[in-house]
């Protein structure tokens, strides 16, 4: 059994906005969501990178205590975008709780804020405080906290998938959700990822010399994917959710079809856990094309992983060029938001859907002088009005995990 899988709702909380119109406006006006790093009273003083892709606007969650007692900040983000997609979908409550809807959602760490509080309590050596570590802390900080809090909040009884693979967390969530529907295991899946504000991640990448440090006084000028003066990634926060549905049932109920997932691939480099690998990435892109049964020239736009690290961008450019040549438009969307970690794949897919629907492609922000080793690509340097029929969203993670999702424009679906 192979069924078609369509996207019928989406929502993202990002450093450049929450509502669809805010995000589109940010992309069209070249507005960055990178801000100065908050002082967390713990790690910040030791970190060289002083920038962060920050969600700095209030969000009206409207959750009750019954909902929130098992939720850390990351689950607030996750449940909010899940609530949005269910509300936008128009799915009946009977279907939501039927067991035919599942959740494929995760984050990099669970909630690092909650984990940090546990350690603070542990090291305080106060017995009276120690007893305050309880089951709720585990439920808030376990790695599948987002998926199960979504399930609990909406009474979802289908499958739970919580892939936690750092930067490919949510692209895997969407890919595995797609396969779950494609092969008939579920009829619909809420898919995505979230990560909350976390200086631990910044410290880790900072120690690896992978974080941007040259633009601490001008946060909006970094990250700079593919630019000759890029100096590393910028960690960010956010969340993204998409609702995937089996095509025939979505069509039958008159759902808005925003796009179709037509292909997915995921592999591993089979070696080094940090260094980008040209063979591994190239293989992933080709596997996705094979899964979608399309040719390289059918892809109009590539949303590159493009974290703005020195070697990562070069290897990715070589892989894109090897598979697609110089035809498709290429943008590194992290230039607007930094690297939103476990949520980046979902957010980048949602931004791509918005651009496809609006008929434009946003340029890579801060791309002033293209690194000559990346210059063989068709970089988007200014707002480009164009019809995108098929787009590729590619993401790569520590651990040597690579993913590629291929999506078709909603206008093409059923045409």
């Amino acid at each position: 059994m192979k069924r078609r899988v369509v996207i019928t709702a989406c929502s993202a909380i990002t450093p450049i906005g929450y509502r669809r119109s805010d995000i589109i406006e940010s992309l069209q006006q070249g507005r960055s969501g990178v801000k100065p790093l908050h002082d967390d009273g713990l790690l910040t003083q030791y970190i060289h990178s002083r920038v962060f892709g920050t969600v700095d606007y209030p969000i009206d969650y409207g959750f009750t205590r019954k909902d929130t007692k098992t939720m850390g900040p990351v689950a607030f983000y996750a449940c909010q975008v899940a609530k949005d997609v269910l509300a936008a979908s128009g799915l009946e409550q009977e279907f939501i709780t039927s067991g035919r809807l599942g959740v494929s959602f995760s984050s990099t760490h669970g909630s690092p804020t909650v984990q940090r509080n546990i350690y603070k309590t542990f090291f305080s050596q106060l017995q009276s405080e120690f007893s305050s570590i309880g089951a709720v802390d585990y439920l808030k900080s376990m790695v599948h906290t987002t998926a199960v809090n979504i399930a609990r909040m909406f009474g979802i009884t289908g499958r739970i998938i919580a892939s936690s693979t750092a930067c490919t967390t949510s692209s895997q969530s969407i890919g595995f959700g797609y396969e779950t529907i494609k092969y008939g295991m579920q009829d619909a899946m809420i898919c995505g990822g979230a990560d909350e504000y976390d200086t631990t991640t910044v410290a880790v990448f900072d120690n690896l010399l992978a974080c941007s440090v040259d633009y601490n006084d001008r946060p909006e000028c970094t990250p700079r994917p593919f630019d000759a003066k890029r100096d590393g990634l910028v960690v960010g926060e956010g969340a993204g959710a998409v609702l995937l549905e089996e095509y025939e049932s979505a069509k039958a109920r008159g759902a808005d079809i925003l796009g179709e997932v037509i292909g997915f691939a995921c592999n591993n480099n089979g070696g080094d856990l940090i260094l980008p690998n040209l063979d591994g990435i190239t293989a992933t892109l080709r596997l996705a094309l094979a899964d979608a049964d399309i040719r390289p020239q059918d892809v109009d736009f590539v949303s590159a992983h493009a974290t703005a690290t020195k070697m990562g961008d070069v290897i990715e450019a070589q892989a894109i060029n090897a598979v697609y040549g110089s035809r498709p438009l290429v943008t590194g969307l992290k230039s607007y938001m930094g690297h939103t970690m476990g949520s980046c794949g979902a957010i980048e897919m949602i931004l791509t859907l918005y651009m496809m629907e609006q008929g434009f492609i946003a340029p890579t922000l801060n791309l002033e002088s293209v690194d000559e080793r990346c210059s063989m690509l068709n970089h988007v340097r200014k707002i480009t009005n164009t019809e995108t029929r098929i787009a590729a969203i590619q993401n790569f993670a520590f651990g040597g995990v690579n993913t590629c999702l291929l999506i078709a424009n909603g206008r093409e679906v059923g045409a």
Partner: protein
Amino acid sequence: MMNRDELQERIVAILVDDFEFENPGLTDNLRDDHGFDSIDAIELLAKIEKILGFQLAREEKEKAMSIRTINDILDYIEAIQASHHS
């Protein structure tokens, strides 16, 4: 050592303020009438430890699992207080 009226005042205040109970009655079923679940029970035990001023032993915590009403909570705390002062 608090008397029953003082304990009742503290516990009802906790249930209203921290657990969002509406108009709690002493014989209401905590789960059926107020949605009180296993996670809430663990949270409440931590608050009871603060009221008592000492940590509960494992077997004392296990005895709390038979609590169904606010009266049961008060009986439970009174029994613990009595055993620690005897």
